[in-house]
């Protein structure tokens, strides 16, 4: 070896061994003497002096330990410490640390980052300064470049589609790198995923010339980096396009490339039978039907589990989650709606949810199934977090509000429940359940609330002549109001029994009313008739028996005119998996710590129940506190302040406080923190430089412009035509809206128009808050993988 083959050991390495923490801190703060490599970036410097690991194990070990410590120390700093030397310096140092991890393949640090992905992501996500200065992107690169399990596959597939829209275009590179490094077990699986990702990206981008050029460019790049014979390429393309609805569009695009063009699908299937998706729909439908018909879920479980296993195998094979998630939701929902479904079923379903949520994080049905499972097994606090996060993630979902309100009602938190139901009733005038639930709750709160309850119920009943619950509850309300209202109650019940003579429930109530009015024989006739029609109808039998034993009547109908006498209907039990309306009373006593609970039925696979992780809980807690704050509950503000005090990276808590201009004194707003910036712009839109905001936050440009529009509506000064047109054009375009809130904005713009439809300022305020909050913590895993 000549002298040129040896570079002298750099003195910094001795400092590293002597005091790793100090050496790394000095390096990343610019204090270290890197000479003669002064002009190298810090990551490049480390690569330069540590490139060959041989003989440097101690140095590597010291560096990894120190980097973990350094990153955690930076993460735990408050904002004042972070910005002491300037935000750019702070972010630049993070980029260098994360880049060094990639360049030197520091697996121990990478493992640490992966283990605490959510914690790091939440810290790094708001610190993006641009495509080259994006600490969160560097975190993903660390995951992408180092060996991982297939946990990140859904992310890489998602990034392929979202890059350039919902997140910077650089995420496409990270996604393709991640797919390349994925341990798959099959030689061409990595390429197949990458091609599928590219195909899905192209299809999502609406066949534009820009999308076409990009597709061709990346296709050529993959072609270069995956050297395969043309026949292999054709085979891999065939597999990659399997199950894609518009695969012919891709085939047409590749038409000029005869050497790699995938074949037209033919009858000769090369894929393994279990990967054929065509039978999944029929099988899941059949299972759902059998469950509905009353077949025991335990008897069906082997088939259910087989279906889930096959669909998830297809999902992992193809990157297409449709069949897996739809099967899970359809079968899971159906099973949970049956009151006799055992808890173990919910536990078994929970075991599938982490994967479903990874693949379709933005699918409210998956979240709802998650909540229902938690509810079924009695973990109501976790269930509540899921609902609060649903309310934030899916602001246009009425169902989650109603379900959350039901849960809160069971816990005796009626003020919050009423707030939620009012919100839902006002926001969703065409949806009945929230109004009916609100009316029920108001009735429980006392006679002074009867008029409002009646208003809501009448709205529903008058709009929908077929609606049974509203009429039955109206009848109950009339009965509770006193004898003079019995005729009105009978009118409502007769309406529904005439329209739906097979509805046993309303006929039983009618029989009870007739009994109360003294017409006992008519009541008995009605129940006898009902009993004869359906001898297995327990409800009718119960009613029939009760008519024969007058002593039961006071318990059922209670003393007239007393609030507590209003029977709790089984409505909620009929539409949700919530088994008993009395559950809240038992909640504390019966709470199940499911993490440690054995699954006793060997039929089910060993479960690792999903639960909301600490960050999801924190986010939900912030959302709940903000809701309380909006309800004028002083506890809400205090809760937000406590959350922010405990964790300065809690962007959601910071945002909700910023919204009411209550950020703690000295809290420095990160330069690229969209939500915090927009909170200020919303409060004082005239002082905001909207053009600059659009430029500064290009990924949220449509949302920013929409917020300006909403602010103008609130302030009674509609946007000028010139400003309105681009927003209108965006809303009218038939294009996907992958950025958070964009789809909602597009719909509002279309429905409300430039001058709005007279929404009150408070409603616009709530809308704006929701839309901005959607942009916080969007990258976070909704689920932690419990290892108990």
């Amino acid at each position, binding site marked *: 070896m000549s002298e040129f*083959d040896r570079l002298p050991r750099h003195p910094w390495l001795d400092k590293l061994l002597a005091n790793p923490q100090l050496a790394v801190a000095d390096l990343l703060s610019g*204090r270290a003497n890197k000479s003669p490599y002064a002009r190298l970036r810090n990551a490049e410097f480390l690569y330069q002096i540590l490139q060959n690991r041989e003989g440097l194990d101690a140095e590597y070990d010291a560096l990894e330990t120190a980097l973990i410590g350094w990153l955690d120390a930076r993460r735990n700093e408050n904002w004042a410490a972070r910005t002491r030397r300037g935000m750019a310096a702070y972010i630049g140092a993070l980029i260098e640390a994360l880049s060094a991890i990639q360049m030197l393949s520091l697996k121990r640090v990478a493992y640490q980052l992966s283990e605490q992905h959510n914690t790091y992501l939440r810290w790094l996500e708001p610190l993006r*300064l*641009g495509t080259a*200065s994006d600490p969160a992107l560097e975190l993903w690169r660390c995951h992408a470049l180092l060996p991982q399990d297939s946990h990140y596959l859904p992310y890489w597939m998602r990034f392929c589609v979202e890059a350039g829209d919902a997140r910077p275009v650089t995420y496409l590179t990270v996604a393709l790198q991640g797919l390349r490094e994925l341990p798959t077990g099959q030689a061409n699986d990595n390429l197949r995923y990458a091609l599928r990702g590219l195909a899905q990206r192209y299809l999502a981008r609406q066949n534009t010339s820009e999308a076409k050029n990009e597709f061709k460019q990346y296709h050529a790049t993959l072609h270069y980096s995956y050297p395969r014979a043309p026949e292999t390429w054709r085979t891999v393309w065939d597999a990659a396009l399997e199950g894609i609805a518009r695969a012919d569009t891709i085939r047409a695009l590749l038409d000029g490339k005869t050497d790699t063009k995938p074949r037209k699908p033919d009858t000769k299937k090369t894929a393994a039978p279990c990967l054929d998706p065509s039978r999944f729909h029929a099988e899941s439908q059949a299972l759902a039907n059998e469950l509905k018909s009353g077949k025991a879920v335990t008897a069906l479980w082997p088939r259910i589990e087989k279906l889930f296993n096959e669909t998830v195998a297809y999902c992992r094979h193809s990157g297409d989650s449709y069949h897996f998630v739809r099967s899970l939701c359809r079968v899971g929902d159906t099973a949970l709606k049956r009151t006799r479904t055992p808890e173990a079923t919910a536990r078994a379903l929970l075991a599938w949810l982490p994967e479903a949520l990874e693949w379709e994080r933005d699918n409210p049905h998956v979240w709802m199934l998650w909540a229902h499972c938690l509810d079924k097994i009695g973990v109501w606090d976790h269930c509540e977090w899921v609902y609060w996060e649903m309310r934030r993630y899916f602001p246009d979902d009425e169902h989650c509000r109603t379900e959350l309100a039901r849960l809160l009602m069971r816990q005796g938190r009626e003020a919050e429940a009423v707030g939620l139901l009012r919100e839902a009733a006002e926001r969703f005038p065409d949806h009945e359940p929230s109004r009916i639930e609100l009316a029920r709750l108001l009735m429980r709160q006392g006679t002074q609330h009867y008029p409002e309850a009646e208003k809501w119920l009448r709205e529903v009943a008058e709009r929908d002549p077929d609606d049974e619950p509203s009429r039955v509850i109206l009848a109950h309300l009339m009965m509770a109001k006193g004898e003079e209202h019995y005729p009105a109650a009978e009118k409502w019940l007769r309406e529904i029994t005439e329209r739906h003579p097979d509805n046993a429930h309303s006929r039983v109530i009618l029989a009870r009313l007739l009994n109360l009015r003294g017409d006992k024989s008519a009541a008995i006739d009605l129940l006898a008739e009902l009993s004869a029609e359906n001898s297995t109808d327990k409800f009718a039998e119960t009613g029939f028996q009760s008519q024969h034993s007058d002593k039961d009547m006071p318990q059922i109908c209670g003393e007239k005119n007393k609030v507590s006498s209003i029977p709790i209907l089984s409505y909620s039990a009929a539409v949700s998996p919530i088994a008993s309306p009395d559950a809240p009373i038992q909640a504390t006593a019966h709470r199940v710590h499911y993490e440690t609970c054995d699954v006793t039925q060997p039929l089910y696979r060993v479960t690792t129940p999903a639960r909301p992780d600490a960050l999801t809980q924190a986010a939900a807690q912030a959302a709940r506190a903000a809701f309380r704050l909006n309800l004028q509950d002083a506890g809400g503000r205090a809760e937000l302040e406590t959350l922010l005090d405990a964790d300065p990276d809690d962007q959601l808590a910071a945002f909700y406080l910023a919204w009411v201009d209550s950020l703690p004194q000295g809290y420095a707003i990160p330069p690229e923190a969209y939500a915090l910036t927009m909170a200020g712009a919303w409060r004082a839109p005239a002082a905001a430089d909207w053009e600059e905001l659009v*430029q500064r936050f290009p990924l949220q440009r449509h949302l920013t412009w929409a917020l300006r529009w909403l602010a103008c509506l609130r302030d009674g000064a509609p946007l000028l035509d010139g400003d309105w047109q681009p927003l209108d054009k965006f809303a009218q375009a038939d294009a996907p809206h992958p950025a958070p809130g964009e789809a909602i904005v597009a719909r509002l713009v279309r429905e409300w128009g430039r001058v709005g439809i007279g929404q009150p300022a408070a409603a616009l305020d709530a809308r704006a808050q929701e839309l901005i909050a959607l942009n916080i913590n969007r990258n976070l895993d909704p689920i932690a993988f419990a290892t108990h």
Partner: protein
Amino acid sequence: MTSTNPDLQALLDTLAASANDEEAAIADNYRFEERVGAQRQQDYETGLGSPADYDDWLGCHNGDHVANLIKAGGSQFVPETFLAVNSTLQLSAIAPGEDLIRLEDLRYPLSKSTAELTSVQLADLLARRDQPEAAATLRTFVDEWNKARDNWPMFGAFLGDVQEDAEPDDWPHRLRDRLGLEHYQGSATKRIPVALMRYPAKLVLDSAKGDERIAAAFALPTALDGELNRVYFPAPSGHPYGATLNLAEPWQPKLSAEILNLRIDYQPKHLWKIGEIVRPVAYRNLRAQRDQHLALLRRETGDTAYGQLMAGRS
């Protein structure tokens, strides 16, 4: 440059007299600087506070000044070099047709590309750039590289000035030495992939348009425009450009004009050559190298009082 900050001046005096070659060289760089505007100097020295020692200065300069004002991140960031505060050093008379060259370290961009190319593959692509697939792959690499580059000032040289070192096969080492790029220290086992970039000045001039904050697209380099670097050497005010410290051994009596230009987006056609640096720099005596360079600068500019030789100082 005489510091208006007494603490810094005291430190400069101490370091300049130090037996430590590197610390003396870096102090000289600051002391010899004649071209930094008064306002910029004052801002810098105010921001510096009271550095107690060399490490303190290093930390403030690299970790604060450079990290926030010269090499910060963000698509909206403009380095101080090109802002009005540095107007005395900005160049507006560069002919658009002039070709600029720049030696780029490829380790970072190669590690961040989709294709995860090696330098050999990149050279292969370059050789086959007429073929559509190679051209597309090259385009992907360059696009991704651009997205991984911040708006940092780019040191560049004029092709016409260094052509004799850019043409031969050994261009990576010759240009490395000629342009004073000491941080590219390769060896047979630590091969540094480099690219020789060649781009027209017009592209740089065009990139300055449309942003009112940018006072000029080109500037003369100073000690404040990069990290504290022992092989940087300021040029006297009479010199039209920067002058790189030649690192060749034996020393070559050549001054090469260097300038700073605004960041541009590279295009595949700017990738002129791909090579590797497989030898460390050969010079051994920093003081001798700098003194020879200073003597040459004095001769070329006629400013015989410029700077101070290191020989005999300690």
